[in-house]
């Protein structure tokens, strides 16, 4: 009895304290790697119930800052205070105990385990815990997990295997895991969401936004995203980082997208109004897809990609649009149909053949399919199309460096060190190098872009879009799988909408003017 009473009092103390003290207070936090100040004297506070947006270009220091909050890095200087108590995290477990939970950009769930096992993976063992002497108490495990899910308003069955869940449901499990430890210790949690929406579809984003507003009732949130409209909609305050420093702290209602872009990137957005025309009759398509099918992915797809035009392929995650583009490139095998590239018909496209015909493909999975992290950037760039950096079988390292330097300048790839390993660059700059690998082709006839802007900050995204427009104006055909409908409406000349593996609508933006809602209807 007495033990129970004492727990109650501490609980009350904690609640009482959080009413005045900030959930998190950072005082002059710094972290240096070698000669580079990744985070330079950053200070801010988060009050209970606040949702904070954290934005900045790739490499601005956001990740390093988050890693110090999650206990992965130790700050060189400065103080981290959680609920008024200074903390020195020796590892992620300490941060969790203090109530800081991180939902990482790349999902980190054990897909072969159940929802409950995933949520409870960090909870301490022992008396009252979910496991004792290394043995699970399944009933308690499932009950505790259900309670954590309930806090964020999710009704997932704790016994489901994570591999059976959709992406957005997995995200819910991650959030439940992030708040699980603090839920049991009755400290209000601070949940850090690191780019949770970058690979979510539009409808799923709406669900996540609802979840975030629920988190507001039980704790605070740091929301990291590159989508400025979302940040403004969801967050109370926006923090902007650049070159390791906190350069702005704005309440959401006192700022706008244009200002945030300028703060982050250091220049105005280039207002881009695309001059659209219809396809001229008689134009020969670069890529003609006829009745193309792939078992279990898509069927009977017919469309053309014309020189100088961007075709955006829209669809939800089950639409088969990614598989369609990979099949055109030759990475997956079609079960029926014909792909004609520059007049050359084929039932069985192959990557080697496509590349010879001047086709390029920017994969969505950059790290595994697009680049060699442990290879210098200039070698990555000239691997497929050496274009002057090779004479016959022999390479010319100095020419290679010169060509790479030119692309670094043109695409504003930073830092300007093409000899550095590509893996050491930030995501946005890696993506620019992978793009340059195809742009370096002297005869690029078509470029297939699979989620080219995924995870890119607005500045890098704008550079990529500018290059896409430039090659388009030079007569290259572009097939684009965009992240959002807005992206399609901004850059495309033609739109193909797919639903359940079939085309459900095509638009020539030269004379059609579909609204977002029109397109959404065709997708769902």
């Amino acid at each position, binding site marked *: 009895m007495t033990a129970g009473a004492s727990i109650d009092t501490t609980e009350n103390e904690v609640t009482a304290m959080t009413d005045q003290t900030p959930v998190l207070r950072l005082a002059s936090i710094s972290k240096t790697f*070698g000669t580079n100040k990744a985070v330079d004297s950053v200070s801010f506070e988060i009050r209970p119930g606040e949702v904070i947006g954290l934005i900045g270009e790739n*490499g601005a220091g956001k990740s390093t800052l988050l890693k110090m909050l999650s206990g992965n890095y130790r700050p060189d200087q400065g103080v981290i205070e959680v609920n008024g108590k200074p903390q020195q995290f020796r590892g992620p477990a300490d941060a969790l105990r203090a109530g800081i939970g991180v939902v990482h950009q790349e999902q980190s769930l054990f897909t072969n385990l159940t929802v409950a096992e995933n949520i409870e993976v960090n909870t301490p063992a022992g008396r009252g815990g979910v496991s004792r002497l290394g043995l699970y108490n399944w009933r308690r495990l499932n009950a505790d997990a259900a309670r954590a899910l309930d806090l964020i308003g999710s009704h997932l069955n704790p016994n489901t295997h994570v591999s059976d869940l959709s992406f957005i449901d997995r995200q819910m499990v991650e959030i439940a895991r992030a708040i699980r430890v603090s839920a049991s210790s009755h400290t209000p949690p601070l949940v850090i969401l690191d780019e949770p929406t970058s690979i979510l579809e539009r409808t799923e984003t709406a669900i996540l936004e609802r979840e975030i507003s629920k988190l507001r009732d039980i704790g605070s949130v740091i929301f990291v995203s590159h989508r400025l409209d979302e940040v403004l909609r969801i967050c109370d305050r926006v923090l902007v980082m650049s070159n390791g420093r906190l350069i702005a702290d704005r309440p959401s209602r006192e700022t706008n997208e244009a200002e945030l872009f300028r703060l982050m990137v*250091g220049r105005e957005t280039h207002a881009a109004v695309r001059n659209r025309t219809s396809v001229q009759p008689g134009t020969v398509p670069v890529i003609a897809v006829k009745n193309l099918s792939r078992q279990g992915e898509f069927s009977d797809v017919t469309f053309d990609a014309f020189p100088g035009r961007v075709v955006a392929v829209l669809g939800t995650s089950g639409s088969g649009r990614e598989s369609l583009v990979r099949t055109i490139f030759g990475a997956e095998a079609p079960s029926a149909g014909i792909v004609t590239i520059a007049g050359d018909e084929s039932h069985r496209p192959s990557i080697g053949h496509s590349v010879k015909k001047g086709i390029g493909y920017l994969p969505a999975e950059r790290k595994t*399919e697009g680049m*060699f992290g442990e290879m210098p950037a200039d070698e990555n760039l000239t691997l497929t199309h050496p274009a002057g950096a090779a004479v016959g079988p022999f*390479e010319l390292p100095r020419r290679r460096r010169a060509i790479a330097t030119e692309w670094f300048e043109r695409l504003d790839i930073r830092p300007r060190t093409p000899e*550095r*390993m590509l893996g050491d660059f*930030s995501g946005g700059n890696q993506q620019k190098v992978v793009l340059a690998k195809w742009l370096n082709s002297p005869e690029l006839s078509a470029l297939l872009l699979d989620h080219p802007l995924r995870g890119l900050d607005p500045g890098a995204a704008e550079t990529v879009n500018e290059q896409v427009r430039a090659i388009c104006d030079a007569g290259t055909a572009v097939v684009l799988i965009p992240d959002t409908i807005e992206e399609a409406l901004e850059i495309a000349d033609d739109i193909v909408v797919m639903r359940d593996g079939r085309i459900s609508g095509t638009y020539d933006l030269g004379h059609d003017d579909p609204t977002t809602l029109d397109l959404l209807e065709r997708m769902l």
Partner: protein
Amino acid sequence: MSATVTEASPETGAAPRARRAVIGRHAWQAIGPIVIFIAMLVVVAILTPAFIGGGGLAIIAASSAPILLLALGQSMVLNVGSIDLSNAAIALLGAILLALALGPLAAGAPIVILLVTTLFGAVNGLLVAYFQVPSFALTLGTLGIFQAASLVTSGRTTVYVSNNGQIVSTLYQSGIANVPITFWIAVVFAVLLWILMRYTRIGRGLTAIGKNESAAIFSAVRTRALKVLAFALSGFAAGIAGIVIIAQAGSASPTGLGSDLLLPAIAAALIGGTSISGGVVNPLTVIFGALTVALVPIASSAIGIPTQAQSLVYGVVIIAIVALTMSRNKSSIVK
């Protein structure tokens, strides 16, 4: 948080993390094997000064030639992320076939042997690349086949060169700087491979496969043809190793000189800085890997370590050197 701060910042650019430690790692990859070899040589010279003066270096170089050749072939295969367990068996089979063929074919025999062993390697490569048999399992199988072929062709005895033996034996008996030509052939082969790896598109493609095979496929690198090439090079190198064995011994047998070269050659490739998971190779440092592997048994008997303990010393030293020189990333998983 003031406006002035804002204007100043974005120009300098987002520099990635400085990685001073990495530069050290790369430098060590280049000179580590040389440093280790020289350090061991110094230790031996201090313990037994007579070793260096008494032509010890020439003995090491001569005995390292077959190991070096096999290690170079192995490093090409390791570089594309595979392994060739059959190359030493190919070398031995090549040596036996050469001993049989030298009489009838004279100077044509070495050329035929090189063609045959290159073909053996290419078949390994074809099966790995086109039928996607894991190289470890496949070459374990072909290792057995080649060993069986050695037993059959040799009739389980030592095969002596009947005629025209001088065609290859001169390679061992004449030398440059007191070191047999056989060693210099291996060195020239290493230099050629180095040029291939450093200055040609083929070399870039081979390394790309080892670093990230999916990305190589998506970059239109001809991954399958290049894998076949890597295994064919391993077979070719094994063929030269077979010729070197005959030049050195004048005979070949399934249990004689060259029958236990597989693991020393893998050790030499690793000590020479080749990554066991692929994507990192420098044929020039493999030379010092092979010299080191050849030095250990010769030096341990020169120092006077009892015969029973030599294999123990060999094992311990090899583990220590591989641990010191092996190419690996800070956080990567080593299998």
